[in-house]
């Protein structure tokens, strides 16, 4: 593959982790819930996915375990936040810290293991196209699934009745409650589904992207995914775009190193985080624009009858 194709391939690969997690968090936030626990869910899911794939030899089992782990932790978060009205920020932080601890603890035995090499997926015909063919059509199926997911989520949120209900719960839970909608059940469902997507992202990381289990391997991707939802003003297509942008920035460091650019490797490693700050600043400069798009009840607890 030529250099550009390599960069494109790596960008799609790295961006998919962020896209899956970002879309999951977007689903949460459209229902009015901020889950700062993304990093923790992704870590536990990365381990669960790796362990399941290691034990069964099946990637599908790995992804299922990852999604399940993410959903389970998200349900715990949801039970606390929605059932017991705990503070969303504090509970999310607790989840992130707990997930980091739990995965480090339970993952000790998996750090030195590897997964057997697996055949690479290729779309027949298209993968042999010159130039970008291999880069675009020789990716893991989840890469294409995440693109379809973004489209599906956009359709769901904007074109279906269920999506309208979900958005109503995120904009004004009081009104939705007055209309007789089961606000808390809807929020819990959205949080759990969002957690499952964060779990898929974690499993993608440990099964496809690296593929290894290392303590703390998400390295802030959960937080970058959180930032993505704001950048994207809560639009699925823009989450996808942002994810590839950040995937590209991450890959740029390897690319530049490969070309012998004389920069400290630490500066290159810091690039994705610096880029997040820069984009956050650029986007946040027009608060009116963000506010106009932000779910109105984002982060606010809903206590029925209060």
């Amino acid at each position, binding site marked *: 593959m030529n250099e550009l194709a390599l960069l494109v391939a790596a960008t799609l690969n790295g961006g998919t982790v962020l896209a899956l997690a970002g879309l999951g968090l977007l689903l949460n936030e459209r229902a009015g819930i901020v889950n700062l626990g993304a990093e923790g869910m992704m870590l536990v899911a990365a381990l669960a996915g790796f362990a399941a794939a290691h034990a069964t030899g099946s990637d599908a089992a790995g992804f299922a375990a990852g999604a399940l782990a993410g959903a389970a932790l998200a349900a715990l978060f949801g039970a606390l936040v929605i059932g017991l009205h705990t503070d969303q*920020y504090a509970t999310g932080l607790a989840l992130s810290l707990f997930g980091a601890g739990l995965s480090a603890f339970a993952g000790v035995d998996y750090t030195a293991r590897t997964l057997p090499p697996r055949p690479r997926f290729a779309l027949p015909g298209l993968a042999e196209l010159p130039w970008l063919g291999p880069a675009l059509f020789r990716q893991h199926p989840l890469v294409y699934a995440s693109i379809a997911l973004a489209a599906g989520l956009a359709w769901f949120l904007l074109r279906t009745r269920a999506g309208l209900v979900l958005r109503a719960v995120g904009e004004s839970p009081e009104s939705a409650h007055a209309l007789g909608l089961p606000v808390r059940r809807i929020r819990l469902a959205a949080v759990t589904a969002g957690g499952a997507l964060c779990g898929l992202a974690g499993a993608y990381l440990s099964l496809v992207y690296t593929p290894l289990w290392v303590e703390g391997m998400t390295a802030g991707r959960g937080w970058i995914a959180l930032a993505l939802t704001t950048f994207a003003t809560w639009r699925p297509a823009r989450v996808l775009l942002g994810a590839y942008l950040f995937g590209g920035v991450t890959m740029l460091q390897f690319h530049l190193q490969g070309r012998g650019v004389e920069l400290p490797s630490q*500066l290159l490693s810091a690039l994705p985080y610096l880029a997040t700050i820069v984009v956050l600043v650029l986007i946040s400069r027009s608060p009116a624009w963000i506010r106009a798009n932000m779910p109105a009840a984002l982060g606010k607890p809903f206590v*029925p009858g209060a």
Partner: protein
Amino acid sequence: MLRLEPRPQPSAALAALAPVAALVLTVLLGAALFAALGRDPLDALRLFFLEPLRSGYALSELAVKAVPLALIALGLAVCFRANVWNIGAEGQFVAGAVCAGGVALQAGPATGGWIVLPILLAAILGGMLWAALVALLRDRFGASEILVSLMLVYVAIQGLDWLVHGPWKDPQGYNFPQTAGFAPGTRIPRLVAGWRLDLGAPLAVAAAAAVWLLMSRSFAGFRLQVGGLAPDAARYAGFSARGALWTALLLSGGLAGLAGGLEAAGPLGQLTPHLPVGYGFAAIIVAFVGRLHPFGVVAAALLMSLLYIGGELAQSRIGLPKSLTGVFQGLLLFALLACDTLLQYRVRRARPGAA
């Protein structure tokens, strides 16, 4: 169906009881975890919670670890009370340690103990500077302080990594990524011969008293908290939200930086990539478990330190991974959040037919 009903008056006694209930719950969950791992739960719990308290020296070690946790959490308590979500204290800790290290490396073998003062001042300034970046971007551009402060943690860690691999690497260090050991004069004065406990402990206690005076006895502290509890009321009263943001972040950054400086020039005596061990994140839990109250924070820091030492003992004595500490920390915060609600609300059986 059970439902939650707010208590007419949140009771102060129950609010103080919640952390105790959370601790009991954590211990029970911990015992279940040990049993699931095939260890004797009582034995493991004794190792975790009693062994670190056995002797004077053990208690001093407990205090050594509690100092950075308390200092950082004191600042975070102020932040959280002002509704400023600084979760990047780890980065401010590293920035403080790096600045302290920069000064300490200037000292020669003959440099006197006076150097400790500039070292600690540099540490405070370093932490403040790192937090000021967060305040600036939040104030000027409205960027989320949660995300900016967190991203800056990774930047600070990479910065430290670069320094110890590059310009500050010890030429006589056998190519290990670390600075030269600091000169003897830079050592933070120790309190008791043979113990690692140093000046940091009285400093942490003084900081707790100062934060208490600020938050409970001063108008500035009152304004901070009104801004956090009721932003509209604060605006109506003419209290500056920007002032609160800057005050909270500079204060917590300074304290986290101080903790970093004390760690670098105290127990470590040099800069290495292993300086950040997550105190900045654990301090978030400490702040909440301490009820965001300065004296509560000190008690919670001692408890959290116990968990750290217990984790180390569990690793050396019964071969469980040290990261068990992280599991306990997370459980503790979860349990606290849950207990908080159950103590602030009453569980009532819903009347049939009621929504």
